[in-house]
């Protein structure tokens, strides 16, 4: 498939986490360099794209921001499919949001169903470190969790003050690209030849 090398690389990144942890803010800070203190809920899922250089390669990141509130995700999470990386975000001033990380990770692995779940690239972000005095989740605790889940890269950020946001997304892009390299062919291309026939026959039954 000589054609694939010509193609621009598209990386799909999903941002997950509880309502109000700052998923949208992180994405807006990274993509648009903007921050607003106002809380606005996200409905459904939406992406923004950003072109970045990773190890001398130009890649397009398609960053999916998601609704933290269950009732605004009523159509399900079909958009998880094909994700190259998943960012788990919590608010370091609200312990509950950290405790829910397990659930978000499990939920992602179940719904997205990546072929090698143990090695799927996650990145963890503890946001709102500008509110350090109110911190309830110690960095140590978060790092221990990340280590226990197979050394997930961990970042502490402030979307408000643009601290560490760029660095975190750079690593996100890298991990996602690593995954992309493992599967250089787009799905369907590999099995093409017998797939349609098989599908048609199964359709008849």
């Amino acid at each position, binding site marked *: 498939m000589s054609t694939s090398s010509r193609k621009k690389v598209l990386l799909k990144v999903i941002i997950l986490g509880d309502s109000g942890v700052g998923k949208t803010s992180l994405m807006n800070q990274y993509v648009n360099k903007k921050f607003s203190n106002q809380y*606005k*809920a996200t409905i459904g899922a939406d992406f923004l794209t950003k072109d970045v250089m990773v190890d001398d390669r130009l890649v397009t990141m398609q960053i999916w921001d998601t609704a933290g509130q269950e009732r605004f995700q009523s159509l*399900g999470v079909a958009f998880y499919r094909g994700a190259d990386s998943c960012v788990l975000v919590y608010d370091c001033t609200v312990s509950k949001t950290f405790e829910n990380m397990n659930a978000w990770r499990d939920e992602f692995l179940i719904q997205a169903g990546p072929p090698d779940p143990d090695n799927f690239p996650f990145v963890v972000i503890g946001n709102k470190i500008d509110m350090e005095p109110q911190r309830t989740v110690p960095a140590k605790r978060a790092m221990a969790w990340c280590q226990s889940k197979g050394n997930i890269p961990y970042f502490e950020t402030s979307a408000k003050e643009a601290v560490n946001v760029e660095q975190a997304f750079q690593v996100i892009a890298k991990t996602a690209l690593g995954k992309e390299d493992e599967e250089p062919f787009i799905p369907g291309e590999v099995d093409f030849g017998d797939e349609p026939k098989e599908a048609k026959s199964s359709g008849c039954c």
Partner: protein
Amino acid sequence: MSSHYQNVREYPAYDDEENTLEAGQTVENKQKTLLATAKNVVDTEAYHMIRALDKSLLDEALKHSAKMLNQLRTSELSPKHYYDLYMLVFDKMRHLEMFFSEENKRGRRMQDLYEVVQHAGNIVPRLYLLITVGSVYIKSKEAPAKDVLKDLVEMCKGVQHPTRGLFLRNYLSQLSKDKLPDVGSEYEGVGGQVQDSINFIIQNFTETVHLFSRLKNEGPASEREKREKERNELSILVGKSLERLSNLEGVTLEIYRSMVLNKVLEVVVQSNDKMVQQYLMDCIIQVFPDEFHMATLDTFLQSCLDLDQGVDLRAILTSLMDRLSNFIQRRASQGEQHDDYGTNVVETFTKYVDKVLEVYAVELSDNLLINISLLSLSLQAYPERTDYVNRIITGVATHLVDTLINDDQVIKLTKKVLTIPLESYKSILKLLDLDNYNQVLTLLPFEEKRMVARQIVRTAIKHGDKITTVDQVNELFELIKPMLKDEPTNETLAEDDWEDFEEEQNLVARCVHLFDNAETDNLFKIYSAARKHFGQGGVKRIQFTLVPLVFKYLELATRIYQSQITAAATPTLEGEAPAVGGVIKQDKVFQYVMEILEVLANQRPGPALQLYLQSALCADRCDLEKIVYELLSQAFMLYEEEDSKVQLEYLHLIINALQGMKHISEENYNTLSTKTCQYSSKLLRKPDQCRAVLMCSHLFWPMFENKELQNSSKALECLQWSLKIVKSCLSNQQILLFVEILNVYAHHFDKKNDKVTAEYLNGMIDLIFTNIPNLEETEETAAAPINIFYRNTLRHLRLRKDQDGEMYDDVRFTLM
């Protein structure tokens, strides 16, 4: 009002609720097969499309893309499965979009492409293609963004099937969102103004609301429930437009107020669709910032009243109130100023809450939920305005008054109404100002009342509230009545609850320490009011509650006495009346003490005896001879009735109290000390007798507090008497008693009792020394501690000799 919307569990949802499990599985399997087949076609056509794109064969690529997009024409898939398919197509379409972009860079005019794709045969593929080209068209800036957007949103009218239409419009929304003319965006200016974007989004929004509402009436009536569930799933496709509006930079508060909110509300209200209304009101609350809500409260709340019957207004109201409460709290924690919200949020909400409660048949639990949110908001926004809290609680009281509270949910919520102000106020005194607080509290079942009462007391103690008037005492004790008094209905205390009960009564007892007033008369009245309440508590409570009160009375008596002494010592100016202090004098206070002690004596003689002694000491300090005598007589009477096992211990206390007397007359003292000696000699066990008589020697020497009561001969008599008693004790008890007696002799000698000479000490030492060998022949284990005791005693004497020298010259240590 029902809250069915809130209760629907939307995610993750598995479709097995409305059918039997088996039927549900069949449906689900069929759906899966349909989806798999469709996806297969999409994958295949996408493959061909991409291959064609790689070879730059546009017509070929378009042909395959149309076939791929054709899969989205299905009516068979449930919303979730359709979404799955849509997402797959969405991903594939990015290739086409990228190709269009590259074509554009190579110089192809987008307007031509825009024409070309319109040749697709079917409307669904045609519009998806058109939107895809349109998005690149806008990016190319060949035409103003606003014109392309307007064209696209108009064209979408061609799809009127609800599900297909909603997804198509979602595609339009997704592809256009970063190409909207907006303040600061690259499409502003020639591309249009933010107003164009607002119009575009609202038009798309309005159409989605229509499509969504239409879905309600499609298909057979029997499948209504299933359709409502599907609608619920699709609702985010409608709500999404509101998020788009909210994300426009150009939608400032002014623009929101003048151009956005009214139009949105109009569409919502006119939909005449309960689900749409419920959902979208919630979306408005959630997607627009708090500052906007603050500034447009009236408009929003007014439109709530125009919604269809059956919309859960409770959910909408509480959701907005809670959101604003959090906002105000957040702002306060960041140090921003209070009270200036541009509008009085509490009064505005109150106005509409009143209307809602008046016009609609609101269930009691919903009523309480609304009031709880209003209460929290009020305490958050205007913590000083007790009148708001008062009003809310009065309202709750009115609604509850005719209801027998036996519903668990109502009980829980009513409790919350009561505890929210408690948790918010840093004092319970404000609570006492609320007119109907107690009325609401009274409506709760006994145990619940008791729990609230405990929380009230804990709060008061935690914050160190000062109760300064009789009224406050009465009000507080009225609130915590369940802790003070049994109710006819509550059952007798189970044994396991005793610890709990004890803890509770200790809490009540601690209330006594909250009483505070600079005037002794007032304090007296406060204590007496408390006494009245405690008196109703019954036997099991007064032992906890009355004891601290006795100490408070004693403290008060001392304070009155002290102030008199101070006043007498202060010289007054001529013609000026001397400071008199309060009307209540110390003897009056003691009358109350005696009354309380009498009550206690009947129930708990032991502690009462101790309190009599304590009170006697205090009365002695206040120079109240008669009362001292009276109190001690009472103590003696209790002593006589006590069990012999504890009598020695009580004698200890009596002797201690007596030797601490300062102002008592010699005559009274003689009577009391003689009586004490008699008690001592009458104890049942000989060793007890011996020890008690020995201790009685302290009743006569050294009497530091009042040396006039010293009597060295009587002291010596006691010592000798005790020695005599030893002789009638068992031999194995004697040696220890000897050593104890030696110690007391030594004490008297040291305190310079003139009758206790070195001879006596030497005699005792000899006596013990001759008995020690006997001792060593008996059990060693028993002997060892006595030996040590004896040696320590001698070591002490030697030490005293080293320090004081001369007076110890005659004490012989040679025998040791």
